């Protein structure tokens, strides 16, 4: 094999990734040091202001009281729920016969396939103030007053609904991946544990979890990355597009600052923060991957 051949093969991919992912990353970092508004967008002029955007950001109470908690707490809760639900479903699937498992897997695939946009609209429809089916059901049970309750205007219920949406959308990946791992577990180890009188709980924590540790690490870290940068599911909920500042997260705040308020520099600074957080998580992910085996 001649030495240039792999480079010819990989050149188009490197060009696309470099031009559309790496270069924009450099540009967003550059923009975060600019006062970049409508005028700059039209004229192409630049106005370097150093760390002023970051200074404004870090001294903004909205960041510490609203946006960061909304991002971090939401991600932690959703990762925990997604991985737990996904693992439970995988354990359930593993004990089914081939026929029932096929049906259940197809249903899970259907949940996975629902696009974030349409899935979000369904949950919004169900929890719609006054006319939403869930709200009316809760109203008829006397739990809430459907005439005066709008869950989208309050922070906790808002993120509760978003959690339902994100877990529903995210658990299929965990379930399918963990199930694939469960299928590789040696059957004789499990049988031996049963003979030794280990309970299902003990078998899970003492055999399944240690053996599938790499798989659990991968699904947890990937879910963390996804749940930190969740955008569509928040943005499309009532008030999520910036109208209600109580429910902004890093992603929607960055977008709204840029495209609703035309403060592209400030929006870039927020995006840089989000990217740095994700980069840290990714570094951790890579260490886990490399510990498993060389790529």
């Amino acid at each position, binding site marked *: 094999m001649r030495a240039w051949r792999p480079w010819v093969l990989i050149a188009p991919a490197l060009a696309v990734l470099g031009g559309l992912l790496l270069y924009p990353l450099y540009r967003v970092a550059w*923009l975060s040091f600019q006062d970049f508004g409508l005028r700059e967008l039209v004229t192409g002029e630049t106005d370097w202001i150093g760390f002023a955007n970051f200074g404004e950001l870090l001294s903004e109470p909205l960041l510490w009281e609203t946006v960061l908690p909304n991002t971090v707490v939401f991600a932690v809760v959703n990762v925990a729920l997604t991985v737990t639900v996904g693992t439970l479903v995988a354990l359930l699937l593993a004990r089914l016969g081939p026929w029932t498992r096929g049906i259940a897997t197809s249903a899970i695939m259907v949940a996975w396939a629902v696009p974030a946009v349409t899935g979000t609209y369904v949950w919004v429809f169900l929890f719609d103030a006054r006319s939403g089916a869930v709200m009316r059901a809760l109203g008829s049970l006397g739990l809430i007053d459907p005439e005066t309750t709008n869950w989208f205007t309050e922070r906790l219920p808002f993120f509760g609904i978003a959690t339902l949406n994100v877990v529903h959308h995210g658990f299929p990946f965990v379930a399918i991946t963990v199930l694939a791992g469960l299928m590789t577990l040696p059957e004789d180890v499990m049988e031996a544990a049963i003979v030794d009188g280990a309970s299902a709980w003990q078998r899970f924590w003492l055999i399944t979890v240690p053996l599938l540790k790499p798989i659990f690490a991968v699904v947890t870290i990937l879910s963390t990355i996804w749940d930190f940068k969740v*955008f569509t599911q928040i943005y499309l909920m009532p008030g999520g597009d910036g109208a209600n500042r109580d429910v902004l997260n890093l992603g929607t705040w960055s977008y709204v600052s840029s495209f609703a308020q035309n403060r592209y520099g400030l929006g870039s600074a927020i995006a840089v923060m989000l990217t740095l957080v994700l980069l840290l998580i990714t570094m951790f992910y890579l260490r886990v991957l490399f510990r498993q085996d060389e790529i």
Partner: protein
Amino acid sequence: MSNVVGSRTARGRVLTAVGVVAVLAFTLFPVFVMLSTAVDARANDGNRSLLPTQFTLANFAFVLDEGRFLTYLRNSLLVALATVVISGLIALFASVAVARFKFRFRTSVLVMILIVQMVPLEALVIPLFVQAKSLNLLDDLFGLVVVYVAFSLPFAIWTLRGFVAAVPFEIEEAAYMDGASWFQMFWRVLFPLVAPGLVATSVFSFITAWNEFIFAITFMSDQDKYTVAAGLRRFFTQYGTNWGAVMAGSTLITVPVMLFFVAVQRKLSAGLVAGAVKG
């Protein structure tokens, strides 16, 4: 481990059955709500139940005609197919390079591919919007294609890599013995063997392009250039939401994706394990 643990006792069987029902209900409930509202003549009636009282296709007719979904579906299809073809080709070449050749910086390239997967779209949309505006690529469907190719590439390369590596090297050598050049070997031997993997990654690229939302609403201001994900927003007006239309439109968006997913689920999970887990 399946049957040993599971269905030994009657109580275990009942619990399993309850679990299956719960999983089916949770996974399928939103889809059921979407479909039943889409065909309900009283979809926008605040007091309706979740079961349609009066079957109608009027919501679909409205969405396709006045809702301009015929245009949006065509736009989305064009963008998605172009994304699939371009990213499939680029990813196939790149995956052969990283799976079949040992070269300097190979590991660095692989690590870079892993790292760019985490880049949040929110961070890319601002610089790419500024860039596309200065290049006059806003309101151009090709601008979306270029962006979606970039987004679908890392996953496609990473997954295809596993499929290429699984092809025994001896088969390649046999082709050379028969006098094939490298490119003949590539198209006649490697390509057909990797085709199943290409199907799985194509579905993923298609879905990336079909479902994408942030860029679709940011880059397109001309309503004739909307893709389906952006087009749905038209049914939310200041006078209220036309839920029948939203759900009919959602059905048109979701059903093709769903059929794809169920059709390739085997290859998909195999690819996930080969690509994401085994490293």
